[in-house]
């Protein structure tokens, strides 16, 4: 996993609420057995017509946002399915951070496993960031994970909360499985205890 420390990039405004995982990556692209290459189909049905032509109005098709690295989104971003193809598609497109008033739990969790930082901000702050994002490519938002701040292009800075364990893993690009395997003795002892207490499991 690519570590995440500090990112300054173009933010794309997507004020729509309830942007779901079917919008982020429609099911016809879940048939892959790889994690890569999904960026081409990120937001596919919002971004392209049925015959594959770009829909010019869609934010990521606009010249200012084609290289966006941040999305500022409406409430409840990532609701719906558990498909990790959603963060894979975002990452493959180049998105490293999403800012919203709330995220669906499973999507939020999946982001951290893939080097993407989802940031929850209060409504008034999201509003300011959304306005900044609307200014296009010249407005570059800075996300600083170590300092836990988001800074607009004109220097307004807002703090955010992030779980300490997730922050540590994200900043160091750590593999969860490796960390858990170091606790193998604890898992062994849990299993032997459970085998006595709940042998039918």
């Amino acid at each position, binding site marked *: 996993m690519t570590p995440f420390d500090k990112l300054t990039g173009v933010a794309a405004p997507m*004020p*729509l*609420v*309830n942007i*779901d995982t*079917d*919008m982020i990556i*429609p*099911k*016809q692209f*879940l*048939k*892959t*057995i*790889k*994690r890569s290459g999904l960026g081409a189909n990120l937001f596919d*049905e919002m971004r392209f017509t*049925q015959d594959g032509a770009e829909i010019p109005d869609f934010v990521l098709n606009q010249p200012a946002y084609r290289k966006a690295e941040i999305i500022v989104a*409406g*409430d*409840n971003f990532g*609701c*719906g*399915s*558990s*498909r*990790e193809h959603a*963060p894979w598609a975002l990452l493959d497109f180049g998105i490293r951070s999403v800012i919203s008033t*709330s*995220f*669906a*739990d*499973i999507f939020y*969790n*999946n982001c951290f*496993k*893939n080097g993407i930082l989802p940031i929850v901000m209060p409504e008034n702050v999201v509003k300011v960031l959304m306005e900044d994002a609307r200014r296009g490519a010249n407005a570059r938002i800075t996300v600083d994970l170590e300092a836990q701040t988001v800074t607009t292009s004109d220097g307004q800075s807002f703090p955010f909360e992030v*779980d*300490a*364990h997730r922050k540590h893993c994200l900043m160091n690009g750590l593999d*969860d*499985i490796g960390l*858990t*395997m170091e*606790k*193998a003795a*604890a*898992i062994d002892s*849990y*299993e032997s205890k*459970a085998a006595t207490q*709940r*042998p*039918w*499991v």
Partner: protein
Amino acid sequence: MKARTLYDKIWDDHVVHQAEDGTCLLYIDRHLVHEVTSPQAFEGLRMTGRKVRAPEKTIAVPDHNVPTTLDRANAATMTEDSRIQVEALDKNAKDFGVHYYPVSDVRQGIVHIVGPEQGWTLPGMTVVCGDSHTATHGAFGALAHGIGTSEVEHVLATQTLIQRKAKNFKVEITGSLRPGVTAKDITLSVIGKTGTAGGTGYVIEYCGQAIRELSMEGRMTVCNMAIEGGARAGLIAPDEKTFAYCMGRPHAPKGAAWEAALTYWKTLFSDEGAQFDKVVTLKGEDIAPVVTWGTSPEDVLPITGTVPAASDFKGGKVEAAQRSLDYMGLTPGMKLTDIKIDTVFIGSCTNGRIEDLRAAAAILKGKKIKDGMRAMVVPGSGLVRAQAEEEGLAQIFIDAGFEWRLAGCSMCLAMNPDQLAPQERCAATSNRNFEGRQGRGGRTHLLSPAMAAAAAVTGHLTDIREMMEESV
């Protein structure tokens, strides 16, 4: 000892390790696996030389991609990429030695129907799957939720998950349901009230008389859609109905082990005075048969209602509602019962069990679907299909003009060829009405199996209660 909720109790019994910051390593009792969200996880194990830690607690079944047409034994019915995914699961199940129900097995079906049916899902367990509708298994008083593929790999390798505890949310349905109102109407009505983000960060416990009065299958329907309300997991405390359902299932305990399990299961309820962080109460008698009009499961209205206008909403929902109305091709003010339907889909992990098929067949008996209507029934498992055939339900569906399919996820998410065409309007017993969910441009109205059957007959969304009066 401090009064604990059902969620607290199951959580406490599965903590392997707790870090100072509260992050826990939680033991997983059952890991269900399907073909779409697992190939990258198994590949990760291969690349790192890791094994599946507990193959005996891992159960795999292909469901999302598989064709449901009767000719599916012929591999040519699958697209190349679908076939590769199913073959990858065949190979991974064999290489890593996990329990497996291949497409050719009569027990194959939707993973959330197979788990309970085979007795893999039992009260007090932790159950995960790379699928958000894992919440279904909460009906047994099991802590069950969806996970992403990285977590699938984590569970395969370690039989644990890194978790932080969610908050407790009590949803109480008091009193009894009125005739024609079902578990589907309960779960949709709750989402209509709390919104699709209302449960974010919570585990829901459904309780109250109306929940107690539901069968196990109805309870599965309720818990299945906890995720549509934003909660990763929904729970219902186990009771005599739960125990009766589990007893005798192939993987349920037997003899002395059963007795020991039962003693433990009877401790699984929220203690008197246990603290909930949020409580919502609905009166069972106030719940009507409902349908969705928009493209979010929170867009729920009683069937007697009318299509709302965007201006009826506030904040970000105004734009979303307008987008939904445009997408769904609906005009504010029109009666929901005037909405014409092209296609009816009965099936999915929400409503693909035998009682769902019985409810639909009861409406369809001796009737025909509307001319030009496309209608299909996709049983949730091969065993549900076999039982429906034995009970004569299959023949009722076929006589009415329905297609009688083989088991799979089918048109719920339309990964296989069962899809809607643009602007095709479907009454579906599934769980999501998102844009494009059932096929690009397809329009979905979520409802109960009986309401879906009624729409198939009349050709438009229909108040099931009127049809029930007719048949009396």
